[in-house]
């Protein structure tokens, strides 16, 4: 199989009605409901190869999760074709369901009122995992995730981070070929986020499964995925390697200067480089095109009392922020670069 996931002209339209606020709006809505169609996903084309780890990026309501729901068979596409590991997901064949898994950061799939181990035993039956293999995988995953001592505790009594680790464990127990992670680190502290990222990297290195991630944390994306798909307004605006993504705004570097005293930031030099000043006015971060890097740096070193400076690549977070402020920076792209 050349591709694990193939979507062609995939589209999903939702229908909803608008209701005016207040009592009159409520009364009026009893007999008058202006329905409108919301195109959540439009002409979405994508191919994903086996073993790839890709990220779906985009603002809230961009259509990332809708695409994921169509890929997992939770919802039925309005039009277009989709194949995941050779199955049409919305038909929900049992063989298909046995080979995928979905982790929802905002929704628990573990049974709340029982210990996680009971849920895992149930999943063992559902996925028909032989006892010996189940034990091996449970030991391996619980040790990778460092949750050996949490398995017999009621899920409702666990912290969010612990619960998320157990959610991951539940989803990986049956060695799925394709794993969908919808905001797996949402609401977690930095340490927990990093633990989960490390687990995903280790697991992927070991098993070479295909992983699709959506996340608003750019750190997740940078750490996990080599390929990004940017979705805005239900259409694909970028599909390519992460390095290429950071160049959407041009080939730029971030240069940070520390000065020995506060600087007049009203001077003509700064606005061209999107300066970000600190409160005391003695530190600035500039976005400088690579071709002007040398001359701009020399000019600032000569004209200002620079005590220290550093250069770094344009962070993906900053690129993303710029694109969200001005979506036209990333033009729609219909074709995959898989």
């Amino acid at each position: 199989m050349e591709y694990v996931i193939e979507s062609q002209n995939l589209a999903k339209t939702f229908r909803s009605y608008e209701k005016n606020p207040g009592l009159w709006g409520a009364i009026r809505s009893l007999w008058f409901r202006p329905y409108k169609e919301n195109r959540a996903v439009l002409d979405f084309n994508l191919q994903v190869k086996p073993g790839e780890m890709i990220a779906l990026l985009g603002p809230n309501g961009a259509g990332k999760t809708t695409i994921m729901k169509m890929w997992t068979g939770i919802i039925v596409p309005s039009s277009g074709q989709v194949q995941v590991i050779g199955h049409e997901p919305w038909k929900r064949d049992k063989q298909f369901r046995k080979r995928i898994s979905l982790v929802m950061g905002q929704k628990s799939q573990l049974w709340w009122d029982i210990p996680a181990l009971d849920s895992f035993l149930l999943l063992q039956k559902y996925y028909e995992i032989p006892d010996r293999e189940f034990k091996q995988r449970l030991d391996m995953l619980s040790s990778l995730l460092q949750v050996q001592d949490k398995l017999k505790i009621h899920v409702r009594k666990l912290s969010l981070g612990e619960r998320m680790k157990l959610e991951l464990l539940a989803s990986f127990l049956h060695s799925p070929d394709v794993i969908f992670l919808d905001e797996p680190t949402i609401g977690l502290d930095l340490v927990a986020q990093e633990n989960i990222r490390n687990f995903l990297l280790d697991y992927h290195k070991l098993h070479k499964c295909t992983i699709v991630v959506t996340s608003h944390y750019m750190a997740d994306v940078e750490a996990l995925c080599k390929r990004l798909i940017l979705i805005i307004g239900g259409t694909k605006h970028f599909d390519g390697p992460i390095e290429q993504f950071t160049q959407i705004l041009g080939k730029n570097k971030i240069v940070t200067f520390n000065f020995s005293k506060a600087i007049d930031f009203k001077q003509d030099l700064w606005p061209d480089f999107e300066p970000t000043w600190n409160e005391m006015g003695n530190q600035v971060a500039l976005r400088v095109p690579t071709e002007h890097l040398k001359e701009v740096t020399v000019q600032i070193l000569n004209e200002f009392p620079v005590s220290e400076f550093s250069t770094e690549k344009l962070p993906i977070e900053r690129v993303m922020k710029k694109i969200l402020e001005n979506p036209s920076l990333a033009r729609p792209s219909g074709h995959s670069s898989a």
Partner: protein
Amino acid sequence: MKSWGKWSQTIRIWWGQYTAYRINFFLQVIGPVLVFFFVKYSLWREIYKGIGNSADNPVMIGGFTLDSMLQYHGWILVFSMLTQGNANFDLSTDIRLGKISTYLIYPFNFWEYQTAGFFAFQTLEWPVAFFTASILAACNVIYFPTAAALVGVLMLAMFISILQFTLQFLAGLVAFWLEETWVLRVLLNIITTFLSGAVIPLDLFPQTLKSILAYSPFPYMVYYPVKVAMGLHPLEPKVFIILSAWALVFCTFNVMVWRRGLRLYTGAGM
């Protein structure tokens, strides 16, 4: 064998969930039917008293003396426990809030999961029903039939509970189309309760209505089994066929509605 393992483990999970909150469980099982029983108990006593019933002058209403009327409602209490299933399961909320998404991913169908929940609930509820029946018998409100009749009654209860479950499931699936279905479910509950003879015995209904109801599943859900339990009616094998046929009809509707509804499902909240 693998399939049995899935079912038994799912039933165990449901047991765990039902018994996690013990007070809630007992209130759910006993509460509504017990309150309903005492309301009817008081009501019928007052009705009989109002029309001059006394030990010397026993009055009959629709062929029921006060004692037999109270026995009728005592058996309804027991039967409600045996057959109501997890009537409070809120499938419609699960659909509306997108809670069924998780179960659409697992290689164990959603209806199988819910049916296992129903069986789990029944296995917990039946001992409570036996206990209640024993207390009512000890208080001379009801009288146990012969062992053979009791087995027949329990078999009836099993068939009726399956029919109830398929009907409740269908009512829940309407949530694919309607945002709020509780009014519909309450209406269905009231209609079922009334037309099955759980409030007033069908003997007091007009003959025309009784004849029409004979073509519906309602009389077989309460009136008929209670009469059998009271020894007032023989147990006819055709009733099992009627109950199975209705359950099959609702199952067919469930499959059709589920397939169509899933096309509208939005998986909200994810």
